[in-house]
């Protein structure tokens, strides 16, 4: 007798996501369905606007990867207008974006994903002295994990638990058999959970120094950046560097050691490939390292595609081969369209209310607001794991060094990367790499400004370049490949499409019935207790879902869609 479980809402993510899974008598997932249950229509809202204003609007696609959509949108317009931004602007954008990666990855691991690995309630059983010794196993100079510090954390948590109301920690899957860390290890991770909650504000502050505020920075404009005052002020750059160094210490002495610690305890399920999923990885590439212009520059994260986990061959990425399929998404249409021509009409067919009082996805039909993107008619996974895998397969010197360094420290084979644990580890490896390279960028910016270059903006004749133009901003967000495509005519946006990381990862099945990345990675996973689908959360969270982003748009004016009247221009 198989069981059908619904997880809705999936919490500790951005956006609204539902997962349904069918499990067999042995509690193994045989089928999984991923559905986004919210639609706003931001691409439709962008149509008709001045392309210079799109960045601020597009940024509101997401408040977590805030700043990424902003930059992609602006770059799509710069690409359309053939504008190359000054060196200072490139460095400022790299620094703001880099700070976002640091912030996002650390918050993701500790505050969104961590509770899938760490049982906070078990931390109460820990001996702080033993825990301090444990911490020393994983780091030479552990961050905030001395006996005294751990004792304080334990007491603080004990007091919190004693009061009765657990607030955000209430009704977690505490005590579930799939939690494998020792009480001491749980205490270390809990200490870092609390410390990261404090420190993440520093990473946000770094973004705000050159971005004005975070979430939703405001200093990027088509042609460059506006923060000339902040880069010509040595104390601003110095503050940025100080905060970066402090945060970097946490990454090296807490985040990386915690991943090694957890990775070792959960090594079995990494080695057997639990949660590996599609095994097709794609990176658009990002972080320009020189000023040769769009899609010409050397990149920190190289672009490419690895298929079926075969590291011996890397395929090139050609944006023309990207299409979107709507067979199982709440839109009309049968052709797979390229984003430049992206067009769909909503066709909401709803959920099916059953006698048990719950509403289920109609999985044979349409069941999500997310379309299914395809690359050359294949499903792809994107994200930190894809970036590390592609860089590693390409023999990128820097990425290879960090990946090998991590594997060596943990005494692990490369194949552990192809798993839920590996996806989580790849994110940490990338964070360390980013923190190191950002130190180089800060110095590069300071040196450039000190050399007298204060240029932050490239002038262009808007009326001339905007009569007819099209372009795309294709690069990476913390969660994976992100592309914005824009068509401009007579100074106005005539079409706009965004294909975002979670569109790739969270998508439903396609026209051939092939699963999306979340779905594929869930099938075959054993769930210890179907009433507490911890393993489902663990794998879905390993992708760092960002669902508001994934839902986009289409046109339809006052169309009858089943029993519903859609009386606006709408889309997903």
């Amino acid at each position: 007798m198989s069981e059908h479980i619904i997880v809705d809402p999936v919490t500790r993510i951005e956006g609204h996501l539902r997962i349904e899974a069918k499990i067999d008598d042995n509690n193994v997932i045989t089928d999984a369905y991923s559905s986004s249950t919210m639609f706003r229509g931001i691409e439709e809202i962008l149509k008709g606007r001045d392309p210079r204003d799109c960045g601020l609007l597009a940024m509101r696609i997401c408040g977590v990867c805030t700043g990424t959509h902003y930059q992609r949108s602006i770059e799509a317009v710069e690409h359309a207008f053939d504008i190359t931004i000054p060196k200072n602007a490139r460095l400022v954008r790299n620094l703001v974006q880099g700070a976002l990666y640091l912030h996002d990855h650390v918050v993701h691991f500790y505050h969104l994903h961590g509770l899938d690995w760490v049982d906070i309630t078990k931390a109460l059983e820990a001996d702080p002295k033993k825990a301090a010794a444990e911490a020393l196993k994983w780091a030479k100079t552990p961050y905030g994990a001395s006996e005294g510090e751990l004792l304080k954390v334990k007491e603080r948590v004990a007091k919190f638990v004693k009061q009765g109301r657990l607030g955000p920690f209430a009704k977690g899957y505490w005590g579930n058999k799939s939690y494998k860390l020792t009480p001491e290890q749980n205490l270390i991770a809990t200490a870092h959970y609390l410390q990261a909650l404090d420190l993440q504000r520093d990473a946000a502050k770094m973004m705000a120094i050159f971005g004005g505020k975070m979430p939703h920075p405001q200093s990027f404009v088509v042609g460059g950046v506006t923060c000339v005052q902040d880069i010509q002020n040595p104390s601003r750059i110095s503050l940025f560097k100080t905060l970066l160094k402090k945060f970097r210490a946490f990454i090296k002495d807490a985040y990386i050691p915690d991943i090694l610690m957890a990775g070792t305890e959960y090594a079995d399920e990494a080695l057997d490939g639990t949660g590996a999923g599609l095994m097709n990885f794609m990176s658009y590439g990002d972080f320009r390292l020189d000023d040769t212009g769009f899609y010409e520059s050397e990149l920190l994260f190289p672009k490419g595609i690895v298929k079926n986990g075969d590291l011996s061959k890397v395929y090139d990425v050609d944006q023309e081969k990207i299409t979107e399929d709507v067979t199982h998404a709440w839109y009309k249409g049968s052709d797979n369209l390229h984003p430049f021509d992206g067009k769909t009409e909503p066709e909401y067919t709803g959920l099916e209310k059953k006698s048990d009082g719950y509403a289920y996805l109609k999985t044979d039909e349409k069941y999500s607001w997310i379309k299914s993107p395809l690359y050359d008619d294949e499903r792809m996974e994107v994200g930190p794991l894809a970036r590390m895998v592609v860089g590693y397969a390409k023999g990128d010197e820097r990425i290879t060094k960090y990946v090998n360094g991590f594997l060596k420290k943990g005494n692990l084979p490369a194949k552990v990367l192809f798993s839920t644990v590996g996806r989580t580890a790849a994110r940490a490896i990338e964070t360390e790499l980013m923190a190191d390279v950002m130190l180089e960028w800060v110095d590069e910016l300071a040196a450039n400004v000190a050399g007298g270059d204060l240029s932050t903006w490239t002038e262009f004749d808007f009326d001339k370049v905007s009569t007819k133009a099209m372009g795309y901003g294709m690069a990476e967000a913390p969660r994976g490949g992100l592309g914005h495509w824009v068509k401009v005519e007579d100074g106005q946006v005539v079409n706009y499409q965004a294909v975002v990381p979670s569109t790739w990862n969270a998508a439903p099945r396609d026209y051939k019935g092939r699963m999306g990345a979340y779905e594929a990675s869930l099938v075959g996973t054993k769930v210890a207790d179907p009433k507490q689908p911890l393993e489902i959360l663990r794998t879905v969270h390993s992708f760092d879902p960002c669902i508001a982003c994934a839902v986009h748009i289409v046109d339809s004016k006052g169309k009858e869609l089943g029993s519903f009247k859609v009386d606006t221009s709408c889309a997903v």
Partner: protein
Amino acid sequence: MDKTEALKKMFTAEGEQIDTNKGAAYYDALWNQCRERLDELKASPKVSNVSINNVLSDEGIERRDFMKWASATTAALMLPASFTPLVAEATELMNRVPVIWLELQDCAGNSEALLRADGPKIDEIILDIISLEFHETIMAAAGHQAEEQMEDAIHHFKGKYLCFVEGSIPQAMNGQYGTIGPKGETFEEHLKRIAKDSAAVVAVGTCATFGGIPAASPNPTGAVGVRDIVKRKPIINIPACPANPANMVGVILHYVLTGKVPELDSLARPKFAFGYRIHDNCERRAHFDAGEYVEEWGDEGAKNNFCLYKVGCKGPMTFNNCSIVRYNESVNWPIGVGRGCIGCSEPDFWDKYAYERPMSGAKIKAPTGGVEKTVDEFGLGMLTAAGIGIGIHAAASAVAGKKDHHEDEE
């Protein structure tokens, strides 16, 4: 009306002064009211037995530092200094206010902002000890367990919790552009159910307050703000994109202190935060008065922190305390970073204000897709309604500057 005339009229209109000193009798009465309220709270059964004094000492924070913070907060709430001990006491009682946080058509930006609740570090302690009963982005429970937690909190704190709402509510297609939970409840049903037993509803961010980005023209999903859905409940709007976490904490504190919603303006925004016009407290104001403007990004004016009005700053039209509180532990703000204000705490700002040109030079969509008026016309209507006063000298320089810019564009 002639454009120049119109602009002159707008900038010289009589201002609606915020009454920052209401006289001793008023404050005495309020003080007594707060005192009673706090005594009442103290006598109520404890929800949590964590005392702030213990938390403070655990965190190595001195009582003195705490009192400093309390006095700064008292000022931010526009109360006389004599209220400082009451504010401190209210902070100690803050764990009595359970909060349920809903996410609807949102981007989680306000949740992220809440995590950024900035220094003094005390704000974070407050987060530790307010009773955050439900918040999808950070709560451990998911699915059915999350639903149970919600039911439990509503039941346990019936009539006592604050319902924070982030994100707008889609009305088109019977509200089915957003569903939540195992039963597939629409956002509207969800909001109404949770709001029903709350003490008050706090709409956070411009989407929840005024519809925000989903409601921007052409509003594909028929999105609206909380005030259009929830009736017969006190509603507090804390707009901005995202809302400043200082203002979120301020509202909670005010509620504890007085048991009431803070004094609100016509848009239901607390006056302690939205009684300030960005322009009036702007660090670049002197350059506006002197007629010194940034003409294009990265120019000499930009290098010298000149006024950003001509590159689209909407500080003169926008009410919020950004120019005082700033963002991310006061490290910067949009005008500091040389971009200017986009009016994000005002209704319909995506269609009215969010572009990098002054209103005369903007090619923007008219709100709600109506007949295209010239931007000056509809912009002025709004401005005069808001009642703004600027000195004659400033008006003259603005008019001159704006006119030049307009001619440049043609």
